[in-house]
């Protein structure tokens, strides 16, 4: 059986997207949640690239990794870092 290495990487990225999304929501530390959502966004950018939309891959990589976590980190510094009980 020939294993398609590209599909194996795609499987890993899809699992990474799902696990990253759940982990970002379950994380108590909001700063860590912002970084995990950025990592999830990189895996999503790979899937965009694999689906033959390279412009979307580049845009998602920049926006999802720098801008969105940056905005959330700004909100955390203006409010509080941990979730209250």
């Amino acid at each position: 059986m020939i294993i398609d290495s590209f599909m194996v990487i795609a499987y890993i990225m899809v699992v990474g997207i799902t696990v990253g999304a759940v982990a970002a929501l379950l994380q108590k530390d909001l700063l860590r949640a912002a970084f995990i959502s950025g990592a999830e966004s990189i895996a999503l950018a790979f899937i965009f690239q694999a689906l033959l939309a390279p412009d979307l891959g580049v845009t998602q990589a920049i926006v999802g990794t720098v801008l969105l976590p940056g905005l959330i980190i700004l909100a955390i510094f203006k409010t509080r870092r941990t979730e209250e009980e």
Partner: protein
Amino acid sequence: MIEISLQLLAFIAAAALVIIGLAGLLLMDNLIKKIIAFTLLSDGVNLLLVAVGYVQGGVAAILEPGDSVTEFVNNAVLVFPVGIVLTNIVIGVSTTAILVALVIMLYRRHGTLKASKVLKEEKR
């Protein structure tokens, strides 16, 4: 082993993202967590639209000088979802910026990030 195409894999990932984002938007009590769940939901919808436009064994929708136009039309992925999603990603950033500003104003007014507490104090 069942053969799963890349398109079906992308559909599964999009469904998972939409479900996780919707659940987080409804169940999380923290306002910043709600913002993160909103971006996840938006990512899921974007991925669904791109996966709809995917063509198996096609080429990216970039026409280079010297390419045959007929071949490009027959093989390229759909251009319309890609353009829509590119717009949606950029609009999503500005929506998130407005949400962040609103959350900061709510925190200054109520001193808390819990949605239930903010709602209770707003009703009074």
